[in-house]
């Protein structure tokens, strides 16, 4: 493991940590513009984090160590995931040690912790949110795996850098199976990141919440870490999407600083477009009734399976 590789690995993770809140801010801006409102500042999520870190944390009386540890676990798993997913550089040291299936496991770990922490303090809302989160999770995970299997079949590998390199390599080929997988992936992304139409990140209505209901009891630095982890999760999902469906622009480990800079610019451009597209989806949709969420995710699963069939039957 070269020191240059380690330095660039650290740099990529720091970039992810820095960009994730901005990505949230950008989506909020696009949503505001699409609703004919004037937009909040791009850096608002950063200011929010700063404010939260300055505040004194209040803890529920009966909160256990699990409740206190969960924000750190969430943030840690999302940072680790950011290290695994190739966002700027393809073949970084961490990227090479874990594959996409480990990544799904990592997301599941975070989910288990947040659900347990939500039930830990024993409020009705926490339990309500945890229950709904597990329902969404157990439907979303298989769909995400199926999406990955599409890419695995094409590239013959479960490692994200290999997949991205294989798909980006000339000659340029259109894979019909990836089109199905792409739609399925967007649906999973919406569900997993508490976006409309599955969840509403902006709501104040406790009874309708999924993700927010689980974190109602968090405050100050704990809440900051939870929010930051949510932003990182969305950022990570976006980067997974880029690696699978628009893998162009990634640099190699030994690329020159100029190429690296270009890769960063490519990432920012992709994020800008993805954020705008996400805002459009969220603006034109209403939130689904919670019992339609299983249908929504079953549809994602089916689309991903269709992609597999297309690949296997047509060899495309």
């Amino acid at each position: 493991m070269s020191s240059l590789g380690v330095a660039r690995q650290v740099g990529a993770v720091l970039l992810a940590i820095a960009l994730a809140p901005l990505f949230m801010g950008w989506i909020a801006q696009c949503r505001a513009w699409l609703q004919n409102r004037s937009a909040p500042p791009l850096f608002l999520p950063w200011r929010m984090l700063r404010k939260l870190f300055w505040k004194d944390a209040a803890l529920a009386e009966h909160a256990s160590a699990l409740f206190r540890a969960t924000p750190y676990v969430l943030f840690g798993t999302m940072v680790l995931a950011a290290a695994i997913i190739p966002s700027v550089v393809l073949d970084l040291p961490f990227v090479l040690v874990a594959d996409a299936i480990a990544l799904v496991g990592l997301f599941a770990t975070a989910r288990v912790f947040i659900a347990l922490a939500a039930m830990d303090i024993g409020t009705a809302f926490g339990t309500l949110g945890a229950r709904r989160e597990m329902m969404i999770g157990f439907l979303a995970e298989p769909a995400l795996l199926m999406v990955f299997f599409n890419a695995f079949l094409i590239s013959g590998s479960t490692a994200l850098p290999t997949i991205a390199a294989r798909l980006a390599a000339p000659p340029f080929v259109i894979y019909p199976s990836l089109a199905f997988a792409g739609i399925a992936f967007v649906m999973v992304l919406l569900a997993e990141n508490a976006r409309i139409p599955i969840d509403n990140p902006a709501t104040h209505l406790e009874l309708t919440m999924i993700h927010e209901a689980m974190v109602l009891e968090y405050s100050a630095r704990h809440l900051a870490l939870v929010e930051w982890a949510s932003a990182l999760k969305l950022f990570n999902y976006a980067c997974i999407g880029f690696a699978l469906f628009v893998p162009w622009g990634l640099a190699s480990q030994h690329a020159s600083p100029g190429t690296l800079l270009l890769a960063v610019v490519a990432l920012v451009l992709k994020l800008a477009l993805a954020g705008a597209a996400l805002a459009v989806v969220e603006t034109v949709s209403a939130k689904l009734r919670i019992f339609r969420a299983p249908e929504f995710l079953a549809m994602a699963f089916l689309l991903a399976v269709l992609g597999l069939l297309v690949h296997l039957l047509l060899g495309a």
Partner: protein
Amino acid sequence: MAPASSAVKAVPLLANVRGRRLLAPEREQWSGMAESMKAGGAGLLALWGTDDRDRDGCFRIHAAYLLPDEVVLVEHALPAGSESYPGLGPLFPVAGRLQRSVADLLGLRAEGGDERGWLRHGGWPETFFPLRRDSPATARFARISAPYPFVAVSGDGVHEIPVGPVHAGTIEPGNFRFSVVGEKVLRLEERLGYTHKGVARRFEQLSQSEGQRLAARLSGDSAVAFSWAYCAALEAVTGVAVPPRAAALRALVLERERIANHLGDLGALGNDAGFAFGLAQFSRLKEDLLRANAQALGARYPFDFVVPGGVARDLPAGAPAALTTQLGALETAITELRRIYDDHPGLQDRFREAGRLERELAGTLGALGLAARASGLGRDLRVDQPWPPYDRLAPKLAVRTEGDVAARVQVRFDEVLESIRLCRLLLDGLPDGATGVEVPAAEPDRLGIGLIEGWRGPVLIALHAGPGGAIRRCHPHDPSCQNWPLLEFAILGNIVPDFPLINKSFNLSYSGQDG
């Protein structure tokens, strides 16, 4: 043969709508009147008690019934020393909470009713009754903390979700206890009364000419309706006729209040279904309307525009034309937004079949106003018993039969567009003349009723005049009292996350019901 003194006596009712006032000296007559009202298709509109022990040693209980074409006021003097009366609960379910309120405030107990406190909440002891004349208005008590016995639901997998009284949004306090299995609601029990302010007692410290200011502030979103109801009651007891120009201007602000509230609700309903675009658009339209209010009426929310005898100020020169132009733009925008709402599959999927209240149940429960019209009960005071100037406007009734959230949305759209039409008519044919007349002090002991169709439903003020322009007793009644119980039924069989949307589709007043 019954002695002549105990026959039901009819006296004229002083009110802005047609009505009768019946004195029922015997308790059997009180119950009998309730039965014949029920048989005649009436709903119980309001219930209040008065402490007349200083006069004839009796407490009195008053019930206002609303029939399609008139209001009937039945009053019963309890025998001296008696503090209980026959309950109306079996005939009119809405009586339950009204009787509990009377018991908390005046200590008159309804026989055969729910004995739990409703408004008291430990703010004063059970032996103290704020509306009795011998209870000092300055009395202060330490808070008494006692658990409220919610009705428990047992069964396999049933659990409770307590929501409130403090909510996450900037809304008023109210406690909702859900009994659920999974996401399905088996039972909802409301506990209200957190915003009880003692308005009725405060009225007694004001003069008749000051009362309007307090009435307007009972439920801020219905400020014009309550102002007008109070003024109508006062004008009825004093026999004052309001000049036509003042009446037209009152109707104009009442309709503008209706439009503003409906616009707010339509946006909020979209937002609660995750369609924030709707909120942004309707909020802008509402803001435009409020700014025009500030220009033309001198206040964004016209709390003190309707005053006894007329209105506080005339429209500035040029205002009618400017308002008419703005209403045209508003109508275009609303028509466009209505198309977007109607054509949005996601939104319609959330609205339809959610929080359904069948017509028959709505009738049994005594639903009023907008909620009743969405369930097929076509009652609107402006149409059924038009008072000036509505008698020359011929408002159209907005009614739907489905009884779900979608129906309540549609009724709001219909009513907004109709209110725009009425505003145009009013602005076009604004009569010339004075905008107000002097209102003298009312003769003591007269009782007047003001009944106005606010945006939520009929708003009632019952004004008992005291000597020298004083208020002896004033009872304000908000239609939310009738409609809060509807929510407990509309939610049954729905899922927990649909509650906020269903609740918003009724959008009831906490402050108005708590008094």
